[in-house]
């Protein structure tokens, strides 16, 4: 059931894939749930709806677009192999693409387990958005954001904003060699660094995770079970 709607990070934004065989009303319900859980994850992303081989009626397309709009999301493109649906999408002022999906894609996307490795500095104004885990070798500068469906590992200084478990997974973790974020978010929880907490002299690797509905930060040496 979980695979009815899949979210895939692409170079130009996010792709929301609809399963070809699922029942239409179920798809809409699932889409609503996913958008509700991951509101923050989608915010500001360029969104493509990939409806696969399904031919949508005018009403069906309007229904999906309406759901997207309810969540404050702007759909940019519709991707489908049905030419009638592409025509409808264009009429609605969207970009229409016919990118075919590889036949095996539906099985090959275990969305949360997919990790992304980056070697770079993420600078102010830049956003890294990925539906799975993110591993970064480099720094996250103030004003930069990492938004991940899974956990985030920063092999460097974390000074910007990281949102792990942005699709609702509160078991996600955030760790960094130097954890001095402007803010951390895990699932729906938000934590900021204390105002007077700037006088920590020892720089050490730390992990942030959710313990009893609170984000707690512990040193990497902390005894773990």
């Amino acid at each position: 059931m979980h695979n009815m709607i899949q979210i895939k990070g692409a170079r130009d934004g996010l792709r929301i894939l609809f399963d070809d065989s699922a029942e239409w009303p179920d798809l809409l319900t699932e889409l609503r749930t996913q958008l509700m859980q991951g509101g923050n994850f989608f915010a500001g992303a360029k969104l493509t709806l990939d409806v696969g081989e399904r031919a949508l009626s005018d009403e069906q397309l309007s229904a999906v677009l309406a759901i997207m709009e309810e969540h404050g999301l702007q759909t940019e493109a519709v991707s489908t192999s049905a030419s009638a649906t592409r025509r409808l999408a264009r009429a609605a002022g969207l970009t229409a693409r016919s990118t075919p999906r590889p036949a095996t894609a539906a099985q090959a996307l275990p969305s949360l387990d997919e990790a992304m490795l980056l070697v770079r500095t993420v600078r102010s104004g830049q956003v890294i958005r990925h539906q799975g885990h993110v591993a970064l070798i480099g720094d996250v500068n103030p004003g930069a954001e990492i938004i991940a469906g899974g956990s985030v590992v920063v092999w460097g200084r974390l000074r910007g904003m990281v949102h792990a478990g942005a699709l609702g997974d509160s078991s996600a973790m955030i760790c960094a060699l130097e954890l001095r974020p402007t803010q951390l978010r895990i699932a729906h929880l938000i934590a900021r660094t204390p105002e007077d907490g700037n006088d920590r002299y020892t720089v050490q690797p730390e992990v942030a995770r959710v313990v009893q509905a609170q984000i707690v930060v512990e040193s990497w040496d902390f005894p773990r079970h």
Partner: protein
Amino acid sequence: MARVITVTSGKGGVGKTTTTANLGTALAIQGARVVVIDADIGLRNLDVVMGLENRIVYDLVDVVEGRARLRQSLIKDKRVPELYLLPAAQTRDKDAVSSDDMIDLTNQLRQEYDFVLIDCPAGIETGFKNAIAGADEILIVTTPEVSAVRDADRVVGLVEAAEKGPPRLIINRLNPRLVAKGEMLSMDEVVEILALEPIGVVPEDEHIVSSTNRGEAAVFNQSSQAGRAFHNIARRLNGEHVPLLEPTEQNGVFDRLFGGLFGRRART
């Protein structure tokens, strides 16, 4: 009903953000309900100048695109009650917001606050046009330098074309010692060149650097000359008659007099 005031300059780096933060804070200290808006989408700074950067959850673009309610996105100041910040988005660009969005936004805020101050991005493009769209009044910040004064004049023309009424002038970072030596334009000269009514002159002050470093407004610092100048501008905005004097190296005495008066009033 709030007055919506946009702080603009044309040229970057003349102190718009510092001015917005200090005027907003001074007005709130003096008892007004104030919202300051950072309209510099993509290059937000008002949050760090005010020391509120780690409290941001939603921003202006979230409000405009309907992901957050306006009230949710207002960040309460650490020290002054009734002072709120609406931060800009850092990861979006200027096209995320339209002039109509800004007009809607300011109209919503008018109901509940006394002042809405908008920190305008540098330049005269979309961002500038959006920032002045909802404004009732315009304050133009300039420094006594040829490039800043020239750009200020350009902005005056655009503000007049937008039928916003005559803007008022804030001359920032004036150095009385250089003015005395004839090596810097004086307040009177800048006023004469731009033919605008001045609402304040802010002397160059090292305290501004240290206040900004700490994320605290200079108006909290009783020994900051610039802080006192911002307090005086806030009082003039409130319609009080506060004499406007060309700062000299000596007339720090006058400033101190007003600063002292103010200090007592603020505590009551």
